[in-house]
Structure formats: structure tokens, C-alpha cells
């Protein structure tokens, strides 16, 4: 008896339904008299009940039965979604979620559902009876199952992430090997050999691309949990907040995605706690009492942008100034968001700010900025007093392999991520610390070099968000796809180095962090 197969199906299908339930429940709370969220909730809970009963999970079946009963009261028009009703419903979903997790880890779902069932019963006419469980106990469903019938709807396989990671690493090494081969063949006159190498190269590129794609997952996997979190935060803080999500079908490398929940949750908490005002304050300011937080993902070239945007009070520049003074830190000189962020992101700055139950001490915006930078991304901030604040994360699509420009400075080779290079150029020296390029004066970034006083030097224009700088070097060496190994920087490594890589000739190079340079 292949009971495990049904337990697995139960887990994956229940999870899907529970996620949908949370969405429907929040939609119902927003429109307490709407029929469709209730109908959809009813179907999901009904399905969970049927599966749980079939597997003999009496607690989950009885709880879903009681919940379904509440929902049918709502469907018949006797019950609307007050915040209290939604609270009980959310706790019911939590209980079911825990049960599903227990089934997943091989246990049978336990815990006392009776208090919750009683609470649900208090919301509606009492449910009639309990749900019948087939005889024979939970591990022996009352049927014998044969071999799996081919299901038409599932065309997915589950692959361990470690296996996928191994493939990504191999794909990356293969891509480097291809580059190395092409370089070796640069001098050959054997046309057939060259053609073969190029054909192989294209295949390697495609394999590499497909392997990376296999690791991509939609941001919805992470966003899914936030509507609930924002609602609970709002309830806790006595604020009315609505979370709007856009672009949750945008895909990101799983390695990046795994780092996002903490970062985004922190930003959302900030938005609700510090950004959104109380309903009274909002009305006094001529705003609707309900605050709006938007979580928006979208593609822009090779980057994914994720915005956390609120329509709250904006960052109080006076308070930031005062705090900076008190801590003896340089205050933001201008009103620009990025300068403000630089001050806010100093370690200890935001953790020293007002402490509430919600935002608490501990992680501050500095951790967000650092985490995003370690993923090869950057954080941008814009805030207008009284209008709201937007934090934008600009993330690479994938962390595994990136195209880079190779430059030489004295005896060292550096790789500059191509995403931050606007163009390669020849820079004429300008006034102290600047260069003149295409008639514009740009700040000069100089890592040293053998000819500091030459009338012109090669280099690249770095563009990071809205910031631009001229990186002057000794030689431009070319372009290459590099595999970036995350590095715990040893003592003595410059702060603008954020990784190391092995180039196609087998020798190492340092990876520059343009965000730290301009």
C-alpha cells in the first residue's frame, strides 16, 4: 500500500489550498459582503477536509468541517468578515498548516483542535456531527491502491536543490572552459576545428542557460506570505493597511530568492510601523484612513527590481539630522534619498532609533543594504515628507555567472561586473579627483596604477543606480563570463572588493564592487 504517495499529494495539494485560503480570506475581509472569496474558500476547505478524512486525519478533518460550516453560514448571508472572524479563520489556517507540516515530516497531525472548533462553532450555527473517519485508523485507509495511473495534469518532477546546485556549478565551469578553449584556438588556422569549437561553445552556453533557468522560481513563492504578515502588523499597531502586490510572476534565481524573505519583511515592517500613520493622523493630513503599501517586482534588462513603497509620512529628515548629531555621525548633506540612505545604513544608526514591539531592535536598514550588496545588488531610497517612502532593491537575475570587464591595475587584475559598466573609455585628466568625459566632469576612481600622471588613461564609466564615476586603470583586458565565489574577505582586503574569481587562464582575479566605488 503506497500510503506515502497519498501523504505527499495531501501535503502539496493542501499547501496550495491553504495559500489560496489566506489570499481569499484577506480579500473577503476587504469586501465583507463579497460572494466569490467565500465560495473559493469553501471549495478549498472542502477539498482539504475530503483529503484529510480519507487519510484518517480526524483532527484536521473535524477542524475543516467546522470551518466549512462557518463558511456556509457566510455564503448563506448570515455572517460577514469582521476582523475577529478573520482572526479565528487565520488561526484555523495556521493549525491546518502545522498539521500539514507534521504529515510532511512523517508524523500524524496532532494537537488539540477542540478550542478552535468551539470558537468556530461560536461564529455560526453549530456544525452537525463530526466527520466520519474510515475504520482501520489513520495509517490504513480502507482501500487498496494499485500502481499510479498516469495523471495528465502533472508534468513536474522534484529535484533536490543540492543536485541542481551541482549542475549550476558544473554549468558555470563548463562555460569558463568554453571561453578558455576559444582563447586557445585564437591563433589556429584550422577552420573545421574552429567551427567545431564554436558549435560546442553555443551548446555549452545553451546548457548553462537552461540549468540556470531550472533554478529560477517566481517571487510569488516569497511574496505569498506577506499579505497576512502586513495585515497582522496593521492589527497589532492599530493601523489600517492594505498590501498591493504586483509582478509576483517575475522569476529569480532560487539562491537569491532564499535571501529575500528577511530583507523584505524588514522593509515591510518599517513601512507599516514607521511609514504609515494612524488612521486619525492620515485623515488630518487629508489622506484616506487606510494606508497603502505596494510590493512591486519587475524586470529591467538583466536586473530584477523590487520596490517596497508606502504612502505614509516619509522619512523625517530633521529627526535623522538630530540622530546623526547625537551619535556624532556626519549628517546627510542634501535631501537626496541615496545620501539619506547612506546615513540611515550606518551600522547602529537605525537600531538606535525608536524601539517598538514590531520593528524592535536588531536588524536595521544597514543589514538590508549589506545583504543586498552581498547578493550583487544595490539598495536605493527615495522619500518625500508627507507623501511616502520607496525602497528599491536592484538584484541580478542570477548569482552564479556574470559577464564582467577585466581590467589591469599595476600587477593586479580586477573583474568589473558588466551590469555596472556604462562604457569603456579613454579618460583625460580633469581637475583634482575628476576626469572629463564627453564634455562631462565625472568623479575619478583611481585604484593606483603605474602611470598616475599620464595625460590620458583607459578605464570604464561605472553607473550604479543614478551615480556615475570614472574608474581609471592601466589596461583594459577584455570581457569574460566569470563565476563569482562569495568571499569572506580576509583582513586587509579593500572594502571595494567583494569576491574573487578564477579567469579562463586559470589565474585568479578580484571582483570589484562598483557600488562601493562611486
Amino acid at each position: 500500500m503506497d500510503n506515502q504517495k497519498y501523504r505527499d499529494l495531501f501535503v502539496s495539494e493542501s499547501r496550495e489550498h491553504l495559500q489560496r485560503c489566506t489570499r481569499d480570506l484577506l480579500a473577503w475581509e476587504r469586501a465583507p459582503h463579497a460572494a466569490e472569496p467565500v465560495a473559493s474558500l469553501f471549495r478549498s476547505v472542502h477539498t482539504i477536509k475530503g483529503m484529510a478524512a480519507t487519510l484518517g486525519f480526524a483532527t484536521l478533518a473535524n477542524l475543516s468541517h467546522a470551518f466549512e460550516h462557518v463558511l456556509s453560514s457566510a455564503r448563506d448571508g448570515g455572517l460577514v468578515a469582521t476582523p475577529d472572524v478573520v482572526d479565528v479563520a487565520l488561526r484555523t489556517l495556521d493549525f491546518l498548516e502545522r498539521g500539514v507540516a507534521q504529515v510532511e515530516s512523517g508524523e500524524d497531525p496532532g494537537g488539540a483542535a477542540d478550542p478552535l472548533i468551539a470558537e468556530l462553532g461560536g461564529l455560526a450555527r453549530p456544525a452537525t456531527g463530526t466527520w466520519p473517519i474510515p475504520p482501520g485508523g489513520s495509517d490504513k485507509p480502507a482501500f487498496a491502491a494499485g500502481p499510479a495511473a498516469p495523471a495528465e495534469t502533472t508534468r513536474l518532477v522534484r529535484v533536490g536543490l543540492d543536485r541542481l546546485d551541482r549542475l549550476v556549478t558544473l554549468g558555470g565551469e563548463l562555460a569558463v572552459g568554453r571561453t578558455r578553449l576559444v582563447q586557445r584556438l585564437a591563433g589556429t588556422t584550422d577552420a573545421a576545428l574552429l567551427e567545431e569549437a564554436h558549435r560546442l561553445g553555443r551548446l555549452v552556453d545553451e546548457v548553462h542557460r537552461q540549468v540556470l533557468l531550472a533554478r529560477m522560481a517566481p517571487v510569488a513563492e516569497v511574496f505569498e506570505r506577506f499579505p497576512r504578515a502586513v495585515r497582522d502588523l496593521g492589527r497589532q499597531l492599530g493601523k489600517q493597511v492594505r498590501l498591493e502586490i504586483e509582478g509576483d510572476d517575475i522569476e529569480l534565481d532560487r539562491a537569491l530568492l532564499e535571501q529575500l524573505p528577511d530583507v523584505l519583511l524588514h522593509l515591510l515592517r518599517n513601512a507599516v510601523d514607521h511609514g504609515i500613520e494612524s488612521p486619525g493622523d492620515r485623515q488630518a493630513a487629508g489622506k484616506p484612513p487606510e494606508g497603502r503599501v505596494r510590493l512591486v517586482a519587475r524586470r529591467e534588462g538583466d536586473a530584477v527590481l523590487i520596490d517596497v513603497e508606502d504612502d505614509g509620512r516619509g522619512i523625517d529628515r530633521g529627526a535623522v539630522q538630530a540622530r546623526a548629531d547625537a551619535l556624532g555621525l556626519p549628517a546627510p548633506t542634501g535631501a537626496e534619498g541615496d545620501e539619506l540612505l547612506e546615513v540611515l545604513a550606518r551600522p547602529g544608526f537605525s537600531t538606535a532609533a525608536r524601539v517598538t514591539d514590531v520593528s524592535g531592535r536588531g536588524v536595521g536598514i544597514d543589514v538590508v543594504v549589506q545583504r543586498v550588496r552581498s547578493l550583487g545588488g544595490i539598495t536605493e531610497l527615495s522619500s518625500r515628507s508627507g507623501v511616502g517612502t520607496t525602497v528599491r532593491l536592484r538584484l541580478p537575475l542570477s548569482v552564479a555567472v556574470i559577464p564582467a570587464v577585466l581590467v589591469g591595475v599595476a600587477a593586479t587584475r580586477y573583474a568589473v561586473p558588466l551590469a555596472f559598466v556604462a562604457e569603456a573609455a579613454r579618460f583625460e585628466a580633469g581637475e583634482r579627483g575628476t576626469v572629463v568625459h564627453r564634455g562631462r566632469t565625472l568623479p575619478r576612481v583611481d585604484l593606483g596604477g603605474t602611470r598616475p600622471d599620464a595625460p590620458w588613461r583607459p578605464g570604464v564609466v561605472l553607473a550604479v543606480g543614478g551615480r556615475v564615476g570614472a574608474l581609471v586603470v592601466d589596461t583594459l583586458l577584455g570581457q569574460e563570463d566569470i563565476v563569482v565565489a562569495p568571499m569572506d574577505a580576509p583582513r586587509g582586503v579593500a572594502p571595494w572588493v567583494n569576491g574573487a574569481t578564477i579567469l579562463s587562464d586559470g589565474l585568479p582575479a578580484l571582483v570589484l564592487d562598483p557600488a562601493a566605488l562611486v
Partner: protein
Amino acid sequence: MGHTVLVCDDAIFMRTMISDILSQAGYEVIGEAESGRQAVERYRELKPDLVTMDIVMPDMSGIEAVREICREDPGARILMCSAMGQQALVVEAIQAGAKDFVVKPFQASRVLEAVQRLLG
């Protein structure tokens, strides 16, 4: 030759289970549907000897699907798979043309009994 069956349920779990029960008993599950609308389309396409039909499904309920299928093929043999507490809906489904019903959670023997009775 085994009889052909179309299995309609919005849960993969239930479809898999019903398919397992039926195929082990020698029936041939030739298709599945996860909504009422799909059930009607698949029925037209596959002309199965028997249909198992869930009641609560998105995009057209099982009862509406029964009504639609029986309008096109009055000889259709449809077995309702309902959850407990839906007696009123079962009656409605029988009036719409369903021939019999079983109640979830299933016991394989009950399902097979009902199927055998329907297929004569």
C-alpha cells in the same frame, strides 16, 4: 476489455485515488477533469462508459456538469462522489441525471460496488 472511465474531481489527490481503485479492478481510466466545464468537454471528446463526478468544483459545479452531459447524452452513466452533509445536493444531482452516488471518504469496495452496478 475493461470499461472506460472519466474521473472528475478538482483535487489531484482524489483523482489519483479513484483512478488507482478503478484501474486496479481492471477498469481503464481514459481521462481526468478538474472542473465542471472540463468534465463536459472531456465527456464529449472521450465518450467514456462511466463518469465519476465530484460536486464541489470551480468553474461549473459537478451538478451543472451532470445536467449538461445528460442533455447531450441521456444514456450517460454518472456516479456522484459527494462529501457527507451534501444530501440535498445529491438529490439534485440525481434529478439532473446522475445514476448513483458514493460518499467520501471512500471505501474502495463501495466505489467498486457502485461502478459494477452501473455498468451492469
